[in-house]
């Protein structure tokens, strides 16, 4: 096909052009943030060496040891722990809301669950610090209440609304014909959900999990208050009853104190860059799944 006069920047009317400008502003801001973080963070990778920085086992800025691995590990440990709690909770809540719950009950439940997402994260942190941590210390008989498990529980509370609201939308949007066909074949309600609705909604549900992952790994204040901030790899590595430190908490804890332009300053931006890369990858995968949802049954 022959290309005509380039029309890609012509938008019907003035409102079109105007909204295009506003739309581009956020893209420009995103672009500038990425350039800024990379620009400030790359010197850390150069000075320390890529693998020394990313896989170094000792994080102790006071003594000039910048190994980000304990932080990276702590972040991932906490987030996986939180998903282990929030995924069953969120997905089954979504199933209930979309399939079983009568309309009047959904109309109450859904806004309430979404309200969980509106609570500022500092409140979650405060709740975890003042209430959950002492309780965990008491019940599990550990020497300190601020451990990976506490952070995981707090994070799971914060990510449940993301999972529920997206998943229930996706599940509800699976075409009625599928359900009717399945029921007509003699399947029970649960059988229909299990082998018809859920597989059709799978890409969307996975996308919601990945978005929850993105939210959890970027969470800062609440985690800072309850994770204990000990830059170590627990022994054994899957021990959730030991305090850990995370990428976000390390940035938040040290940022105010760092002298401008020092190696530590660049290291903190380096941590930011690592975080950016992780969330970008996760968001891109989530996007991929969102585009797939729900366009037919894949069993």
């Amino acid at each position: 096909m022959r290309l005509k006069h380039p029309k890609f920047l012509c938008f019907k009317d003035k409102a079109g052009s105007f909204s295009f400008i506003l739309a581009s502003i956020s893209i420009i801001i995103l672009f500038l943030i990425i350039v800024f973080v990379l620009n400030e963070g790359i010197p850390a990778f150069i000075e320390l060496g890529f693998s020394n920085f990313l896989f170094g086992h000792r994080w102790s800025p006071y003594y000039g040891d910048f190994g980000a691995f304990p932080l990276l590990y702590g972040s991932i440990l906490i987030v996986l722990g939180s998903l282990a709690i929030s995924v069953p909770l969120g997905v089954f809540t979504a199933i209930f809301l979309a399939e079983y719950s009568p309309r009047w009950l959904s109309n109450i439940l859904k806004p309430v669950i979404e309200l969980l997402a509106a609570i500022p994260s500092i409140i979650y942190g405060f709740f975890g610090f003042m209430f959950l941590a002492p309780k965990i210390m008491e019940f599990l008989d550990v020497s300190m209440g601020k451990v990976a498990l506490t952070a995981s529980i707090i994070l799971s509370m914060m990510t449940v609304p993301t999972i529920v609201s997206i998943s229930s939308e996706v599940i509800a949007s699976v075409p009625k014909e599928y359900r009717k066909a399945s029921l007509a074949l003699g399947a029970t309600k649960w059988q229909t959900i299990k082998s018809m609705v859920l597989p059709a909604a799978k890409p969307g549900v996975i996308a919601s999990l990945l978005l929850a992952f993105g939210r959890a790994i970027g969470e800062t204040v609440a985690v800072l208050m309850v994770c204990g901030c000990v830059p170590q790899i627990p022994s054994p590595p899957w021990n959730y009853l030991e305090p850990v430190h995370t990428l976000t908490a390390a940035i938040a804890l040290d940022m105010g104190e760092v002298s401008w332009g020092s190696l530590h300053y660049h290291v903190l931006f380096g941590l930011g860059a690592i975080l950016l890369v992780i969330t970008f990858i996760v968001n891109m995968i989530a996007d991929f799944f969102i585009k797939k949802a729900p366009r037919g049954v894949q069993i």
Partner: protein
Amino acid sequence: MGKAGILTVAIVTFIIGLFSGSFALAPLLSANRGSTYAYSEDSLWRTDSIRVVGSTTVLPIANACALRFTELYNTTNIIIEGGGSGRGYSELIGGLCDIADASREPKQSELENAKQNGVTLILHEIAIDGIAIIVHPSVTQNLNGPLNLTLEEIGKIFAGVYSKWSEVREGLPDKEIVVFVREHGSGTRATFEEFCMEPFGLKVKTGASEVPSNPAMRQSVEQTPYSIGYVGLGFLSGNVEAVHVAEQSSGPFYAPTYENVKDGVYPLSRYLYMVTDGIPESGSLTDRFIDFVKSPEGQRIVEQCGYIAIYPKE
């Protein structure tokens, strides 16, 4: 349609230009703020505004003094922020604030940074602060008196040489020690390390939990049985036990009280500073504010905040 397209491209280019332009111009624009005013007229400084940033230890003093100062001269504007001594120094060197609060002297790296930026750091002593070593009451429950520790023993506890309380002293509980420390830029930490860690070649163990402020430190120790931490003297309250400290094991051991710090017998004490870039212009708001903190009224506020005054109060 073509017209709208060209217009759009032009506007977007303009916005990008504006963004990048402001980045490039920022240093030029901010360079102007260092220019000096002549404060010959008494009234000029009254409409000025300054920013005071830094150590959370100095924060209560700065806050209370600023409150009183702006009450006296209600057209002045003093903005107080915390963030730690490190932030204070770096913002002062970066020209972002007028006074930096500090609970330690500048590090070598900060001095070099200041030199590069043509900033002369002038330290104004405003008060003395002691650091109290605090433990959870569960540690001392079997002791008749207070817990006595030497500086070296404290260092070894924080370094992880002793992992259980019973290894430190007979009669202490046979429980793991939970160690809390402050984050790297904290003046409290710098002073603590200078007294308890550096002289003995010790480093804080990796299992130590970092907390971001004095109140958070007190809260953490309060909440956690068998834990140890340290706070500025002004924050010594609540359900924690203060450790009595001596330089040698033969004693004498001193409690972290105002009298002991004032008399200079308590080993863990330090000066608190307000830092400026060069000697402040006579009669400027910066000058007036620091003078106020050093004045009898300011020093009374210092004492009310739980620190030790160094200038006469009457």
